[in-house]
Structures are given as C-alpha cells and as structure tokens.
C-alpha cells in the first residue's frame, strides 16, 4: 500500500525509521542533506520558506520513479514497520514490512532540497 503527505517539516528534515534511538541518529549536517545509520535515515526536504514537500512511502516496485535513488540502505525493522517522523518525533506516515531488516531506497526530484521525496521499501 502507498501513503502520502504534503508538509513543510520542521527544520526541513524528516526521519525514516522503525525504532528511533537517541544514540542511533544520523548526521544532519552533511552536504547532501541525507544520511543514515542502521536504524534511521534523515532526509532533507524543501526549505520551509519555499514551500511544502510531497512525501510518499510504499513498496519499492509500486513507488519507484525509475531513476537512480539518492540513498539506498538496509534498516533494522524489529517491529516490522517503517515510520516517517518529523524531527520533533511526530509520526507522519507508517508502512508495514515483512522482515526484521528492510531495504530502503530514497528518491528525490532534486539533488538538494527536493519538494518530492519517495521512500521505497523492500
């Protein structure tokens, strides 16, 4: 199933994770504005003053836009789900997954400050 939301997230960042732990957070200051650990991926979005960002999550075959992802990793998903959070720990979207470790691919419509972010699972 595919889910979407349109939002200007605080600090123009979203987090993609099953479990959020304070000692497993990625670097928020990388040049690419995207970074991950084995538990969490931080994704930079459109600058808040410039507008909102469309965020979509779903199975990779369903949401793959066809171009190369900007980030590709394996996340620990012990609760068999992947959640999109704001940096203030507010849940935006949630999607169930089948396994305890899940391949996560992130696509953006721009190399930096994308206003469309797609999260493909599996």
């Amino acid at each position, binding site marked *: 199933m595919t889910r979407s939301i349109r939002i200007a997230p605080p600090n123009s960042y979203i987090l993609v994770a099953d479990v959020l732990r304070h000692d497993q957070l990625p670097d928020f200051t990388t040049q690419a504005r995207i970074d991950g650990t084995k538990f969490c991926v931080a994704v930079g979005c459109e600058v808040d003053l410039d507008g909102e960002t469309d965020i979509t999550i779903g199975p990779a075959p369903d949401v793959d836009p066809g171009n190369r992802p900007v980030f590709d990793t394996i996340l620990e998903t012990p609760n068999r789900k992947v959640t999109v959070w704001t940096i*203030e720990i507010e849940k935006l979207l949630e999607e169930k997954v089948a396994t305890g470790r899940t391949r996560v691919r992130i696509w953006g419509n721009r190399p930096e400050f994308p206003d469309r972010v797609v999260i493909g699972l599996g």
Partner: protein
Amino acid sequence: MAFSKLAGLLSGLVRTGDWNRGDVSTGRHHYDPTQPRVPAGNSDGGQWTAGGWRSERASALDGEVLSDATPDNEWRPGARYASRRRAPPSDPTTPGQAVRLATANARARDSIGEVQKREPNWQPAPFVSNTVEGQIAGLQARAREAEARLQELVRHGIGPGPFACDWIPAPIGRRLNSAERAEINRTGDLWGCHTCGARNPGTASGTWFGDHQHPTAMSFLFRRGQRIYPHCRSCSGRQGGWITQWMLRLKGTQK
C-alpha cells in the same frame, strides 16, 4: 640503706611470700589488703578510701532521678537519632573563603539562569558538602557545567544566537505568508544567520530557513510566544539533530 641490707630484705620477702606485709621483720600489716581504692580518672584516683568508693557526682545525685526516660515512649537514653538540622561546616569560614563562596555562588546562579532561559527544565548535577572548600568547589563545578551547557545550546541554535537582530513574531496555526517570508529573507540578507553569522543561507534558491525560537518542540517549557529568525542551512540541520536527540532523551526510544 646499704645495698647488702636491701638485698637481704628482698630475699626474705621472696622466701616467705609476705609481699603484703608492711613490716617484714615483724609480720604485722599496716593496711587492710581488702581496702578499696579510688579508681583512676578521679581527682583522688589511687588513694585509699574508707568505704566503698563512690564518686562525688554520684554522692551529689543521691535521691535524684538519674534518667529522664519516660516509660511511655520508645526513646532510649543515650541513643543518637536523626535530626533535620544539617551538621555545621566542620571548618570555620575565613573572610577569604566567604568572598570565594559568594563569588562561586553568584557565578553558578548566573550561569544556570542563562541556561534556563533557553532550556527551562535543565538542572546541573547536585552536590553535597559539609566544608566551605567543598561548597566552593561544588558551586564552581555547577557553574562550569552550566557554562558548557550554554555553549552547547548556543552552538546548536537553541535560543536566539549571538548574531540575532531582527525577528518576526511566529504566526499561530498557519504558515508564513509572502510578506513574512520576505521579511525573514530581508533580515537574513542584512544580518546573516542568527546563530553563526553566515551571510549565505546555503540554499539553491538563496532563501533562508525560518527558525522558531524557542524551538516548537520545547514550547511546553515556555509561556511566551515564538519568534522567527533567519537560519542558515548548517545551523538549521545541526539544530534539528539536537532537538531530535533532546526529544528522544525526554520521551525515550520511540517505536
């Protein structure tokens, strides 16, 4: 007494076993071996006494009640019980120490106050000391801890930064309109990032990030409204990471 005579007397004592006799030659006692002596520790300690020894204090208390214990409570005379009063410092305070104590106290109070303007629920580690020097050291440690926390908060954009000048009040329940966005960009172009002073926002469009102060996640700690200052890309990201970590420490791991 000649040495030979003394030796003879001693040998006679040993031979007869009459150690307690006053006059070895006559075998007559000059004292009663069972007569009691005043115990050591008294003014007349070691002296023979006429009857069974009793101290002057005990004699004076004849007829008095020696214990104030009452039968209807569980207090035991002589036992030590906890008191709410803290023991006074074991060493006296010198004028120099008093000055240092007051200085350390003022520094700690000011530093903690500055931190709590940005993070109202922050507290330094507690300390306990019964000495003046210990109290001075403890207050100095609290001040150092607060100063380090203040540096951390400023570096992560918690609270208006050292370059903060103009700001706009944050609207409630709606996004910024075009005039407000233009004002943030004007302020950023004029004064730079309020945290680091950078003159370039680091965005492709040249737009500044609008930074809410206090951060929205910490709103429950503040009574006043929020302001919006211009923030650069690096400071906005660094602040985002710090807020996430702070929230997770506050709320625990999120599943």
